[in-house]
């Protein structure tokens, strides 16, 4: 039962070949334009000298040999950065702690000055004629460190006598709380059953395939400083760079063309952005920096790194009375960008999941460690809390003899109670959890699992099935609204200017489909331009899965305005009144009144625009806007696994996902996002993990040690959408980008526990590597 309200699946064509997305032609022919492809004549190349110690004082540094090396133009140090007037890298949010005191915020310096705090931290930058020459020169760095004890994990950091940062005792940036502690304590006192489970959402490497890169060209005549870099929306980066460099936004342009994936990592300025602006302006030459993958491993913000310790209180029948969490958030060495947001808001707003929970409370400790700073990675805390809740529910069910399906069923928020405000103040618009779950149970053949399990066992394998009913809160947005600017050329082509470009999501295609549907223009008359410096507007970058419904709603509003203007023109064309013209499916039609003898009149948008004069076309220009807040995509995923006990290798033999993503604009692109999210979840569940040793050395420093998902590791995903429209935006859509991993982490983990629990294994953390699973089984048998 698929109740998709699918929009027109428009396909672009190129030379009679059907393309799924307009973006595809240039990308499949190698004509994409990523930052590392940018070339300026006479361009110089930068190399960053980085710390090899996790925690140390720089006692001596002599870069004279570096500066004197062949081909070197300049060496930049912290002193140069200070003289330039640059500020530390941005932190998006600071909270009040549990006592109402301000959070102890320590922002990352552009270049380390007297101390280094993580392996990979930038210390200096070399600018030379080529990347090889810059790296040759860097080898001549003469630097001495006084190595200090490192705190590579939270427990060590909290116990540390001599903290990373002066004034931050025990490396505690803040202890945060949300919800009602007293009410929750009462719920636990009244409980008949309680259950507790601590889970770790381990530190991950985001690994967009395009390594981080920046190219800066200095101002020339009337042209501003040009900063080429992958972003998740030009405006955010403009603000970041202005704040860190001290430049005014009108002094520079941020140019983002194609982006090779972002997943949350491209949202803010890094040291290299600031350093290249300094270098390019002071040398008056274009400068390029492209990170190597190993370098990016130790300098792109890391993801996740949360420990979520949850408890649930139940009455005798299994009704949830309360839930509480005691969480630990590994910030890394500094407060960078989103880590506080993740460790406070994002792990609290949906901490009741899809359940009716009368009392909710959480505390989180935000802790500095001598590791790469942590920021947003696909879901930014929301998949993590959904993971913790769903594992806790399963754990409680098994601990106290409840069926995990029925325990969920009786605790879902009933449809009649929506819009529902959670105990800690989050307003959910509408979810139909039970209907979703029933469909997922049916589609996954959940209730015939036992016979499949017996078959696996006869072949010497273990088999498990796990389910997760998740909900996640997509991005509220930081801008007051989303705007787009629509301009018609003299020839009648509509160019829509927006804030944010894609990093693989296919915004161009989706936006074109919206315009086709709501305005009736054909694709060849539509263009979308993101981040054009000559068109400034208010709006959000991409993040929290909101672009389609956020910017998309603004585009719909633009279409409605243009339709209104066209209607006025049609009225004078047909000499009729406003209420006689209908617009539907891209066609203006004269409504025939009874008894009239006039012929039916209709005209398509495309034809109408062709009939207008160039001046009339340009009068159609408008600014579309909309306010679109958080939406609540939700779903039920069911995973089925088979484990070979001889090797500990797990095969996912079935994966079913039924998601409520609101109205779908581009079903094929939506499914692509689900696939990508589920597989990233698979990676976290089975193979990915950042490992530091006790000295803060990054042991997983490259793809030789950090295992990404590969083709063939997941079977087909059986996917259905169940559309429950939302009124929270003009399109009725819900954000899909992070839904896939939110559903996959808990369903895969619950499936693993289902297979392992009969062997006395009550709890295990991700990643469920083959070595870990084998060792756990061996210990029990």
């Amino acid at each position, binding site marked *: 039962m698929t109740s998709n309200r699918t929009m027109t699946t428009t396909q672009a064509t190129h*030379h009679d070949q*059907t393309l799924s997305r307009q973006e595809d032609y240039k*990308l499949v*022919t190698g004509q994409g334009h*990523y930052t590392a492809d940018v070339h300026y004549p006479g361009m110089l190349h930068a190399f960053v000298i980085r710390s090899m110690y996790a925690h140390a004082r720089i006692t001596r540094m002599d870069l004279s040999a570096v500066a004197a090396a062949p081909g070197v133009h300049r060496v930049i140090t912290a002193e140069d950065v200070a003289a330039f007037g640059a500020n530390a890298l941005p932190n998006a949010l600071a909270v009040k702690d549990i006592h109402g005191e301000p959070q102890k915020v320590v922002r990352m310096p552009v270049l380390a000055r007297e101390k280094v705090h993580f392996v990979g931290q930038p210390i200096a930058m070399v600018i030379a004629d080529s990347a090889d020459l810059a790296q040759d020169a860097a080898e001549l760095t003469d630097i001495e460190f006084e190595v200090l004890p490192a705190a590579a994990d939270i427990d060590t950091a909290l116990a540390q006598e001599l903290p990373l940062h002066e004034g931050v005792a025990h490396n505690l940036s803040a202890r945060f709380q949300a919800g009602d502690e007293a009410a929750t304590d009462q719920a636990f006192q009244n409980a008949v059953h309680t259950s507790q489970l601590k889970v770790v959402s381990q530190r991950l490497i985001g690994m967009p395939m395009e390594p981080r890169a920046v190219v800066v060209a200095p101002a020339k005549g009337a042209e501003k400083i040009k900063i080429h870099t992958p972003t998740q929306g030009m405006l955010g980066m403009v603000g970041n760079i202005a704040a860190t460099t001290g430049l005014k936004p009108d002094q520079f342009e941020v140019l983002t063309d194609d982006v*090779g994936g972002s997943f949350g990592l491209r949202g803010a300025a890094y040291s290299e952005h600031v350093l290249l602006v300094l270098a390019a302006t002071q040398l008056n030459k274009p400068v390029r920096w492209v990170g190597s993958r*190993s370098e990016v491993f130790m300098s792109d913000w890391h993801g996740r790194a949360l420990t979520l310790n949850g408890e649930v209180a139940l009455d005798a029948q299994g009704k949830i009375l309360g839930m509480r969490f005691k969480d630990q958030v590994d910030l890394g060495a500094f407060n960078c960008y989103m880590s506080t947001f993740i460790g406070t808001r994002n792990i609290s707003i949906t901490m009741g999941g899809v359940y009716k929970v009368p009392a909710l409370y959480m505390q989180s400790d935000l802790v500095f460690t001598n590791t790469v700073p942590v920021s947003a990675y696909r879901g930014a805390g929301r998949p993590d809390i959904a993971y913790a809740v769903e594992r806790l529910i399963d754990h409680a069910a098994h601990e106290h003899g409840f069926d995990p399906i029925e325990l969920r069923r009786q605790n879902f928020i009933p449809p009649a109670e929506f819009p529902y405000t959670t105990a800690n103040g989050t307003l959910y618009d509408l979810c139909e959890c039970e209907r979703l779950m029933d469909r997922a149970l049916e589609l996954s053949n959940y209730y015939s699992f036992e016979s499949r399990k017996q078959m696996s066992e006869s072949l010497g394998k273990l088999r498990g099935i796990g389910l997760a009913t998740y909900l996640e809160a997509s991005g509220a947005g930081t801008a007051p609204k989303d705007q787009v600017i629509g301009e018609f050329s003299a020839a009648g082509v509509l160019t829509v200017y927006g804030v944010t470009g894609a990093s693989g999501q296919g915004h161009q295609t989706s936006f074109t489909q919206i315009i086709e549907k709501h305005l009736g223009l054909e694709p060849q008359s539509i263009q979308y331009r993101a981040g054009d410096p000559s068109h400034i507007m208010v709006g959000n970058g991409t993040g929290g899965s909101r672009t389609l419904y956020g910017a998309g709603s603004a585009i719909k509003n633009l279409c409605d305005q243009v339709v209104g203007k066209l209607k006025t023109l049609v009225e004078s064309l047909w000499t009729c009144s406003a209420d006689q013209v209908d617009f539907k499916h891209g066609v203006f039609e004269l409504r025939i009144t009874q008894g009239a003898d006039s012929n039916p009149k209709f005209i398509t948008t495309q034809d109408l625009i062709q009939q207008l004069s160039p001046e009339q076309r340009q009068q159609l220009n408008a600014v579309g806007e909309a306010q679109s807040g958080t939406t609540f995509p939700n779903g039920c995923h069911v995973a089925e696994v088979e484990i070979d006990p001889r090797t500990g290798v797990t095969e996912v033999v079935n994966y079913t996902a039924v998601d409520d993503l609101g109205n779908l604009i581009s079903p094929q692109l939506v499914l692509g996002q689900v696939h*990508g999210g589920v*597989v990233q979840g698979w990676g976290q569940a089975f193979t990915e993990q950042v490992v530091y040793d006790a000295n803060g050395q990054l042991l997983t420093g490259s793809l030789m040690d950090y295992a990404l998902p590969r083709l063939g590791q997941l079977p087909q995903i059986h996917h259905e959408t169940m559309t429950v429209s939302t009124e929270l935006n003009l399109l009725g859509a819900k954000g899909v980008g992070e839904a896939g991993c939110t559903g996959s982490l808990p369903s895969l983990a619950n499936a693993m526990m289902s297979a392992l629990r009969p062997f006395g294994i009550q709890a295990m953390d991700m990643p469920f590597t083959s070595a870990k699973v084998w060792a756990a089984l061996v210990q029990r048998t």
Partner: protein
Amino acid sequence: MNISLHINGQVRAAETDDRTLLVNLLRDHLGLTGTHVGCDTSQCGCCTVLLDGQAVKSCTMLAAQAQGSQITTIEGLAPASTGALHPVQAAFSKCHALQCGFCTPGMVMATVSLLEKHPHPTDAQITEGLSGNLCRCTGYLNIAQAVKEAAAQLAS
């Protein structure tokens, strides 16, 4: 060092360093930026080109090693004159087997090589054939589909 290579059916010459990698010769000296660099441990496959018909990782070869060989990059896959796409390129788009596009040129070239060897590949052969290529966006399912679609198109 003066290097002369056969690339996409043309002889191209460049003045390079002994240490210039093939991928950097293509990208920086010859302006063929369709071939990408995604890692530094020869695992991601974004740099895959065809060398004498075989898929190789151009980041793990010196330009000097490629002397005398025929190289095909992503730019040379489809006949430039018509603008039509190679069946593998068309299949990737049709099956939505690309999102950000960064791994795509390497994925396409590896697929071309795979299909030359196995015109009707099994799932196992597809898994093995693309085992040298990583993607972070698509989750691979559509890529496997695109390989099968391309195989069907090439066969017809």
